[in-house]
């Protein structure tokens, strides 16, 4: 298996990667599939899964108050308005909006649930035991380690994705972006911003 994040985050060294590879080898040896077939499936799977999708949702919410309200009320329906229905068909999307005095951050303590279709492949750290156990306990310290030093007056809401609901953080629109169009705004939004481990 050679998914894009393997190279980016060196997942080859994780025990789970070795287990997955062993399983793949057994299936290939049994004549049930091939490396080529697995790679093709993964390529197709990742083709429509990108943080560009989440960024588009955020850019629209920044520029259209009606859309923002609908997004916060029913994330899946709002995503479908932007043609992202197929990407959100297998979960309920719940968008949570940051404010200057309230910051949201997403974690999955039980495993690594995450809206892959809207955020792209999940980063290695998102699946790490340290992130999963510490974020619910000391989020301010964890965010500081990401370089996000929140003012003491900003409170933090952590969302633990234990069910079939998937979360998307809507960052605060940066100052000085008034003249920018949708695409330029979307380009400002990072995957970490959509998880809540970056400001934008």
């Amino acid at each position, binding site marked *: 298996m050679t998914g894009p994040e393997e190279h980016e985050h060196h997942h080859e060294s994780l025990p789970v990667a070795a287990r997955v590879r062993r399983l793949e080898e057994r299936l290939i040896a049994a004549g049930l599939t091939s490396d080529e077939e697995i790679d093709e499936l993964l390529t197709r799977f990742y083709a429509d899964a990108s943080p560009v999708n989440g960024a588009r949702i955020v850019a629209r919410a920044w520029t259209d108050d009606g859309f923002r309200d609908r997004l916060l009320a029913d994330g899946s329906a709002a995503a479908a308005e932007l043609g992202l229905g197929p990407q959100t068909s297998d979960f309920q999307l719940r968008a949570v909006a940051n404010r200057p005095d309230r910051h949201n951050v997403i974690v999955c303590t039980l495993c690594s649930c995450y809206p892959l279709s809207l955020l792209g492949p999940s980063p290695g750290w998102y699946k790490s035991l340290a992130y999963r156990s510490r974020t619910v306990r000391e989020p301010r310290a964890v965010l500081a380690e990401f370089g996000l030093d929140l003012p003491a007056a900003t409170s*933090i809401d952590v969302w633990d994705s*234990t069910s079939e609901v998937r979360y998307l953080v809507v960052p605060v629109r940066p100052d000085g972006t008034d003249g920018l169009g949708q695409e330029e705004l979307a380009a400002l939004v990072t995957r970490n911003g959509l998880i809540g481990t970056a400001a934008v």
Partner: protein
Amino acid sequence: MRFPPGTRVRARATDPDHHTRLPRYLRGQVGEVVTAAAPQALPDDVARERPAPRVETVYAVRFRGADLWGSGSHTVTVDLWESYLEAAP
């Protein structure tokens, strides 16, 4: 909906010997219902391959970090199936 938003609920202090999506760090803790999601099949039943898994309302329940850990000004909101919860006084 058994627990409308604003209801105080306690996560059950059970320790089942089967799969569950009730995280251990919440068991016995009291929080407040923030919102509810569309009903979902109960993972405990699905994992045990029950022929007709229960389908329950899933509540987003907000806990105070200080209640869970003894310190912290943050909140932790967790999606919990209805049978994981009981009304708290």
